[in-house]
């Protein structure tokens, strides 16, 4: 019997400060026991529990893609006890990771479809994983058009800046990078809130087009009517939720929304599913 609460030991291999306010850092982890990497076989959209002995555990979406081998990456916003401690840790430090946990984005359904990714703020991590996976030469032909609308408050608050510019140069993905506002004269992408940009840039909804939406509640609130107007069915709008978690495996009882656990039955739900669930998130 495998103890599902036992983390795999990992070493911090690299730490990248992502945003100008230093509130977001990406941690690249390497498994101490190489065999654990195979056990951690994951898909984009899943999460892991980062485990720091003496501090506790936090559920964080996996930012790396399964197409990237030899490490796993998590981008972490400094907000509570564990994340604050993690932000002060150094390359070479040992900690633990449990996972992969939760359900990924529904890749079987998404195959052969147009994909529009809509992200805001720091909720772009599993979306990064998804983009890397879809753009992989082995995978790109499995999808039709790919659109990405990604917004942040300012240029300095965007995650994965180098990758964003590289994707913007490609002709097999339509990048719509936007910020709320800036006085930087060299800013070469869009300005405006995500719902507005969605209205202008998103393809119309149809059976073959799926939107994956992750962002702060305010962005989701104003983006949903836009998608409704564009003709997106609620079955074709996919969202990823967060709730306070401990076990991550549907046992400890706190992250439920109705009969479903965000950790085990989610975090990915379609808007149709969410329409029939209490708004306890």
């Amino acid at each position, binding site marked *: 019997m495998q103890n*599902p609460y036992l983390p795999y030991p990992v070493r911090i291999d690299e730490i990248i400060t992502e945003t100008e306010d230093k509130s977001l850092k990406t941690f690249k982890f390497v498994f101490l026991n190489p065999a654990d990497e195979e056990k951690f076989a994951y898909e984009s959209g899943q999460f892991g529990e980062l485990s720091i002995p003496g501090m506790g555990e936090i559920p964080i979406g996996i930012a790396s893609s399964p197409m990237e081998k030899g490490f796993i990456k998590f981008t972490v916003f400094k907000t509570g006890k564990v994340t604050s401690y993690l932000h002060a840790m150094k390359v070479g*430090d*040992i900690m633990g990771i449990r996972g992969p946990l939760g359900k990924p984005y529904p890749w079987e359904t998404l195959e052969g479809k147009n994909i529009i990714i809509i992200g805001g703020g720091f909720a772009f991590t599993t979306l990064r994983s998804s983009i890397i996976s879809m753009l992989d030469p082995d995978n790109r032909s499995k999808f039709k058009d790919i659109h990405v609308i990604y917004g942040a408050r300012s240029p300095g608050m965007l995650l994965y800046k180098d990758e964003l510019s590289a994707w913007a140069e490609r002709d097999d993905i339509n990048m719509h990078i936007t910020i709320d506002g800036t006085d930087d004269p060299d800013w070469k992408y869009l300005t405006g809130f995500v719902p507005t940009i969605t209205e202008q840039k998103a393809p119309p909804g149809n059976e073959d087009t799926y939107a994956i939406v992750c962002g702060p509640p305010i962005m989701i609130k104003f983006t949903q009517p836009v998608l409704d107007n564009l003709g997106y069915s609620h079955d074709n709008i996919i969202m990823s939720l*967060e*709730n*306070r978690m*401990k076990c991550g495996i549907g046992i400890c009882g706190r992250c439920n*929304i*109705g009969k479903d656990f965000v950790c085990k039955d989610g975090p990915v739900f379609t808007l149709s599913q969410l329409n029939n669930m209490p708004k306890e998130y």
Partner: protein
Amino acid sequence: MKLIKIDRQSLNDGIEKAKSAYRVFGPVKEKNDHEFKLLEKSEMPDLDFQNTRLSPKSIIYPQSQVMFTYSLDESKDDWRIMKEVENVKSPMAIFGVRPCDALAFPIVRRNFDTPDYQDTYWVKAYEATTFVGLACIDACGTCFCTSAGTGPFGEEGLDVLIIADGDDFYAKPITAKGESFIQTAGWTVEAESSVASKIDQLKTAAESSITSSVSTDKLKNKTILELYDAPFWEKEAFSCINCGTCTYVCPTCWCFDVQDETHGKSGIRMRNWDSCMFPLFTHHASGHNPRNVKYERLRQRFMHKLKYYVDKYDNGIQCVGCGRCIRLCPVNIDIRSICNKMNSFDAKNNVCEATSS
């Protein structure tokens, strides 16, 4: 139906013998109540009780349980690596479990022992345990087991059922685990066949001593949102002080918290019973709380037991009718009346039919 007859002396002798093969737990008197305790050598359970103050839940699922140990000493090789605590369970037997409390274990098992994950701590303790039940002869006023999936002679969750008849006892083996407990105890005298009808009479009398009930037949047909949005939750929660007593005394409440506790350079990761009545239970690091208000937490508890569980497992309600939460609630919130309200709620007309508990 095989029945073993045991007199008072052989009952005690058998329990004593069983202690050589099992750690035997049984009800003993503590102040004004009975509690399950590990029985020391020659210590006997006290069977003069209606039910124990707390169910034997904590024998399988301790209120506080160490899961891992760790070292924060940088000079050690295993610095910051979680190590499992030894989790080998020697056989245990719980003697004197009431049928309601016994049913709680299979109910809770659906949460801890799933096709995807096994909670190794719970599952190993559960598998190592033989449940020796004691049928109820007279019920408490708050009992409603007969409408909550079991009854005073209920067998689900038990390995042996023992029925007291004055100074005589009858043991009914239910599982192979139960057979081997009876064998270890050295109880071998088969009861004469006439006993069966006598036991039926005792059973009927015990069942008729249970005067309250819940109706659960219509819970499944309503949608989650119909019940969630029902108008009675704020009123039901008005007097609730969110003390969490109901969750701690409930044999089927299983929620827990995980905490690290460090002393010097070493520490433990442990889990502790938690309660959906507490605001911190769902409090996000950002400050947002999806169940921020008292009535939302009370609604969660009853919706979980009487709707979410029903929908998720299609195996009845997550309540065994022991009545502890009713007896111990400081403000007299009664799961029977809430269950009946939920069951009779007519979403179309936004009313509950007249209910009695």
